[in-house]
């Protein structure tokens, strides 16, 4: 059996947000008298874990544990406006809106706590565990729960805040294309190793080794989820997927998961990755949007690895065994010097 191995590299960046369409999202935060913080949104979790990371962002910004944050999202009657979950904007846009709202709520919280403890609010800090205490004097402390109760029943104050993140819309110049398409960029580099069956054109992806620069991994395991799932999707795009296998001919469009080809659990390559963080100046705690990018670098890396293995360029997706085999046969018929 004739097998040839090759290695290929690709490096990409990815824009966060849709500045070209205007990009606002809002968040409202309020404390209940149970001392929990409700974050009202109209944002959607597609499975990437938006609800979890928004919990973390709110908890961090107010200074309470995540268990004290309740995400109430995706009801247009109660949640303020969100453009939607796309364009790798969720963490960045909605996260920023939550931080703004949380800061406003935190200010009221600290003011009430200051009244209760009879100190200046400037002298207080949150412990991240559900209490507020005088800086350097942990014993002079009050639970957030009691502050929330006092705010409502004693001080007549709402511990609440309003937040919005709006990126001014960029209109491209019609002549030059001058524009500001995104706020920040994430980065990725993938090195793919493949084995090509030179008699059948079948490609096995042996490994995907990647580095991802994500600004700040707010939840590292969820970033890893995006990375592993995205790399699989990239491999799938590279070698398998199409709704029109004979494009531009419309014939034989797949109708089910047997016909719509994607790698199965037996095709998963060895995946290794490392995370780099260069904080985004405008991101929530430095975060960038990475969910979409993770699928991109594996595709050309695999294409380049195939060339490295057998000297065949397949410049159309998906790179099917047929395309590889046709390339190998054409090369054998009229040997060309390598590029």
């Amino acid at each position, binding site marked *: 059996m004739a097998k040839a191995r090759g290695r290929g590299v690709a490096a990409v960046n990815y824009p966060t947000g849709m500045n070209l369409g205007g990009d606002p999202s809002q968040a409202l935060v309020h404390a209940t008298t149970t001392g929990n913080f409700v974050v009202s949104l109209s944002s959607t979790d597609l499975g990437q874990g938006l609800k979890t990371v928004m919990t973390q962002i709110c908890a961090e910004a107010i200074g309470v544990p995540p268990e004290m944050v309740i995400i109430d999202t995706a009801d247009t009657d109660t949640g303020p406006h969100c453009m939607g979950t796309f364009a790798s904007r969720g963490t960045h846009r909605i996260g920023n809106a939550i931080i703004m709202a949380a800061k406003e709520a935190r200010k009221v919280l600290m003011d009430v706590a200051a009244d209760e403890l009879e100190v200046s609010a400037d002298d207080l800090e949150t412990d991240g565990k559900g209490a507020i205490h005088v800086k350097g004097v942990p014993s002079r402390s009050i639970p957030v729960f009691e502050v929330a109760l006092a705010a409502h029943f004693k001080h007549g104050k709402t511990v609440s805040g309003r937040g919005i993140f709006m990126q001014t819309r960029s209109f491209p110049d019609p002549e030059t294309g001058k524009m500001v398409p995104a706020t920040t960029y994430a980065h990725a580099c993938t090195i793919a190793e493949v084995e090509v069956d030179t008699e059948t054109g079948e490609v096995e992806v042996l490994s995907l080794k990647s580095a991802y620069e994500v600004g700040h991994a707010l939840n590292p395991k969820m970033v890893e989820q995006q990375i*592993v799932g995205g*790399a699989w999707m990239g491999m799938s795009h590279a070698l398998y997927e199409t709704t029109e296998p004979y494009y531009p001919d419309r014939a034989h469009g797949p109708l089910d*998961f*047997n016909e719509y080809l*994607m790698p*199965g659990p*037996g095709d*998963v390559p060895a*995946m290794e990755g490392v995370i780099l963080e260069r904080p985004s100046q405008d991101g929530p705690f430095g975060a960038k949007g990475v969910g979409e990018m993770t699928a991109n670098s594996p595709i050309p890396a695999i294409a380049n690895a195939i060339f490295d293995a057998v000297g065949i360029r397949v410049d159309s997706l998906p790179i099917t065994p047929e395309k590889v085999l046709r390339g190998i046969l054409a090369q054998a018929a009229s040997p060309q010097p390598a590029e």
Partner: protein
Amino acid sequence: MAKLPLIFTVNGTEQAEFVDGDALLVDVLRDKLGMTGTRVGCGQGTCGACTILIDGAPALSCLTLAVSANGKDVTTVEGLAMGGTLHALQTAFADGFATQCGFCTSGMLVAAKALLDRNPDPDRDAVVDAISGNICRCTGYEPIINAILAAAADLRSAKSA
């Protein structure tokens, strides 16, 4: 057309319903019994989201006529946790970040349970085969494979303890 009787056991509890001849088992579970944990992803038998156990064997509830389940013992994802304690698979999926959107999760768990009930010490290939009829679009499968292997190890050590 008269409705047909369906008497079967679901997660250890006997159920009796009258169903139409063309009623699918998945629709009876979801619409009549309110067990919506069994998902419908394709209605074609190609995604595995509706996987349940019938008499211990994995089956596609979207391709099973409800009347065919008469007298059978059905297990759904709701039947995995026993007396409020999560099954080791459920714990491993949650702890191992093996779920993203969660839509395939029920079918994956049930398919995995079918494997572990039969083979408590599966190798990676056996796990891969066990979920080979189940589509996941989010995770890239790797975390799911690892979670099943971890659950198998947990179950073995719990048994030997």
